[in-house]
């Protein structure tokens, strides 16, 4: 699947929802009563035609959430969120979009241009009226672009392989035994404030089940989900890999996504059994707000994977360039002997963006291994924090961890912070951690400039080099776009 499919995902997402530049509050919707209460949750559950046990589970989460306090230990600061002043279930209705590309915010179009998105796709992305129908036809000639046929073809392939891949609300109805068994088993309902909130009110997300011995025949992406185009504010993803199964899952999109919801509190749970491998890649480019950080997305996500079986492997790769605040720690619980956890991250902040991200590697079993490579780039007035935990429990004989955190500061008004926690309870476990903070060296810049590169291109080149260790972990087509994205995110930060 070429990179365009990712763009395509955005096309779908945006084309179907009430997307418009910036935020709108007066969108016409079918919604649950404002505020968060048992009634709201019952309403959501009923609308989703959920079984009784699911409702109980949500209510349990809600009660846990009510008893919890919003955390304050994080580095990013944000104004208090009024959880009663929001809608928790909304089916957006289509509303008129811009009539033509001329009406679209020129800033947005410029961004599309830089990402190399064809003109007709730009129109769909920007939600120009009629664009998604009229312009889709010529695209449909290309098999890759025809969402319906692509989805059908892939659905068939997946079905033949025995892979279940569907919206989580379908899974709750169609595969209750699997959902019941695994949902909340990695991130319990009362795990943390935002996970509890998500558990109570989540409305959509993906469900993936790869049966024993199956190598998923293709990379899975949120794009291929039918009926789940509006991913919503509280997304819930559950991926299960049985013995010797393998799956690679892509989330996100390189094109800038606009959303009317400011708070995004998603939960992702991964379960890997014996010799199973899950690779989860994210490219996040949500709306970061304007130059003064106004109106950007709060991306508060709980992501955790459990390596339950022997030699299981979970690998997180993320490129985080968007959102006003990115706050998440994709983690691995290494419970199976010889299991492996990996975390590769690039976090870029510019203007007034704030990021507090990192990982947790909990080594429970012998001979478990983990690798953490985190690259942080701060520019403008932004603040970026790496926060991570490596914990070796008493039974983690012979466990290994290697952590490398590098920060790059561009400009003297930004901040880069590193907060690693290292806890070792087993003498045979070995933990290594190193961190550096630096700026782009004058030598490197001079070298590039003297070969005719503009300052911006030179910075882009150097930053890409700085992130190479992480970018090479991305699926190839993703990596190409991610490189462009990095350069774009740092635009205006030099010179």
């Amino acid at each position, binding site marked *: 699947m070429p990179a365009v499919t990712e763009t395509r995902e955005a096309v779908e997402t945006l084309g179907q929802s009430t997307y418009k530049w910036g935020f709108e509050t007066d969108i016409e919707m079918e919604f649950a009563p404002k505020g968060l209460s048992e009634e709201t949750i019952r309403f959501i559950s009923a609308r989703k035609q959920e079984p009784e046990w699911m409702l109980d589970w949500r209510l349990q989460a809600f009660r846990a959430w009510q008893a919890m306090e919003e955390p304050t*230990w994080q580095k990013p600061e944000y104004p208090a969120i009024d959880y009663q002043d929001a809608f928790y279930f909304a089916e957006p209705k289509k509303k008129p979009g811009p009539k033509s590309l001329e009406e679209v915010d020129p800033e947005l179009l410029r961004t599309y241009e830089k990402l190399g998105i064809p003109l007709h796709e730009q129109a769909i992305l920007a939600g120009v009226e009629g664009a998604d129908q009229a312009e889709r036809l010529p695209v449909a000639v290309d098999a890759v672009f025809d969402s319906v046929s692509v989805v059908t073809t892939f659905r068939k392939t997946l079905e033949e392989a025995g892979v279940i891949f569907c919206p989580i609300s379908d899974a709750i109805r169609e595969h209750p035994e699997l959902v019941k068994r695994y949902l909340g088993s990695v991130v319990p309902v009362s795990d943390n404030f935002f996970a509890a909130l998500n558990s109570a009110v989540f409305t959509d997300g993906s469900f993936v089940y790869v049966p024993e011995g199956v190598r998923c025949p293709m990379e899975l992406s949120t794009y291929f989900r039918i009926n789940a185009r509006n991913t919503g504010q509280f997304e819930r993803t559950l991926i299960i890999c049985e013995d010797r199964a393998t799956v690679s899952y892509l989330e996100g999109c390189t094109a800038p996504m606009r959303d009317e919801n400011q708070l995004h509190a998603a939960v992702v749970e991964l379960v890997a059994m014996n010799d199973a491998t899950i690779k989860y890649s994210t490219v996040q480019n949500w709306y970061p707000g304007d130059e003064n950080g106004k109106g950007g997305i709060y991306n508060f996500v709980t992501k955790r994977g459990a390596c339950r079986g022997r030699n299981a492997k979970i690998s997180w790769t993320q490129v985080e360039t968007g959102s006003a605040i990115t706050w998440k720690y994709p983690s691995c619980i290494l419970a199976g002997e010889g299991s492996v956890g990996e975390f590769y991250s690039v976090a870029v902040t510019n203007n007034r963006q704030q990021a507090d991200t990192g990982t947790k590697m909990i080594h429970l079993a012998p001979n478990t291994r983990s690798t953490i490579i985190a690259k942080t780039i701060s520019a403008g007035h932004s603040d970026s924090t790496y926060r991570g935990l490596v914990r*070796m429990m*008493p039974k983690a004989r012979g466990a290994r961890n290697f952590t490398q955190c590098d*920060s790059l*500061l*561009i*400009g*003297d*008004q*930004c*901040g*880069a*912070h*590193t*907060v*690693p*926690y*290292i*806890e*070792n*309870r*087993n*003498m*045979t*476990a*070995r*933990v*290594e*951690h*190193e*961190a*550096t*903070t*630096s*700026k782009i060296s004058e030598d490197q810049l001079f070298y590039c400039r003297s070969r005719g590169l503009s300052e911006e291109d030179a910075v882009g080149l150097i930053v890409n080099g700085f992130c190479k260790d992480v970018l090479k972990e991305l699926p190839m087509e993703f990596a190409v776009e991610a490189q462009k994205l990095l350069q774009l995110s740092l635009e205006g930060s030099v010179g």
Partner: protein
Amino acid sequence: MSESVALSPALGSFLARAHEGEARELLARQGLPQRRLEAWRYTPLRDVDRIGFEPPAHVSLGEAEALLARLAPEARSGFRVVFVNGVLVPELTRLPEAVILTAPDAPLLADRPLSVLNSALQQPGLSLTVPAGVEAGQICLVSLVSGEEPVSTHLAHQVTLEKEATLTLLDIQSGEGAYLANPSLTVSVAEGAHLTHLRVQQDDVRATNLTLVNASIAEHGTYDSFTLTLGSRLSRHEVLAHLGGKHATVHVNAAQLLAGTQHADLTSVITHAAPDCNSRQTVKNVLMDAAHGVFQGKIYVDRIAQKTDGYQMNQALLLSEKAQIDSKPELEIYADDVKCSHGATVGALDDEQLFYLRARGVPYDTAKAMLVRAFLLDALSLVTDEAAYALLDQRVEAWWLNREG
């Protein structure tokens, strides 16, 4: 937040003795730091909270002399200041003529629980100034505690170095019994001055030691410290260093050698508040039995502190199944033209190194001792004063023989 915390035995006993004032009020409100306080998550004072501490008994001169001979023989000659049970023993004290004793005026740090506790129960400690340009040589600061009942001392020391003055402070903590020692040391290093602070903490293994060092360093000044922690059941050595002038330097080096169920915490916050400053930190933990080592080190670089050079290394050697280490090296950086790095490694002795030595006929125990000593050498070798190095080395040697024999 004005309501007070529940009155624990420790807090009750402290408040009964505390001086009236802000520190006492803060203490009553905050209590002793517990796990929910991020800076104390690895060293909550839960057990300390259960003990009611009394003021220590007066000790006669004869007893004081005997204690000094027994617990700190290295301080029997030369310039020294001796405190026994929180009180100065003038007969055992001898200071160089060039230094001036001053009235203490150490600030209360409301957000530092150790400063609050020390201020609330403050006992006058050593408070001296080395005048400009004076090379004061070495002064030994000896703090001893003796008492079978749980007693506590809260000495407040203050050392001020005027412009281009130099001093080596050999700081020895020791004692007998299940006491609490809670000293504070306020250091002020003026332009071009140089303070070397070598500390040997060899408290009784039933004791608790909670020390706070608050150092501010001016342009071209240096605060060079090394702490060797051998004693106490529970200890925390907290260093706050503020680099306030260009080209100031701070070294916060340490080695913690722990066995049994000892718990030792080295916490440092180094603030780079001026350009061109330099901070260096090498901290080593050697942990045997069920010992628990903690390292928390933060380097804070202010926006104006361009050209900062900060380096921090902490390593732990676990020599037993039950030993544990918690380490949190932290960088908070707001200036772009800086060179800051930290590294941390945790693990057991390297099997290959052991094999190398054993293959050459070195017995297992000797090989192990060699490797541990080599591990410590990185930190110890940073002590440039030969006599001080010899003392520290001898302490390490004695500790090791004691464990292995």
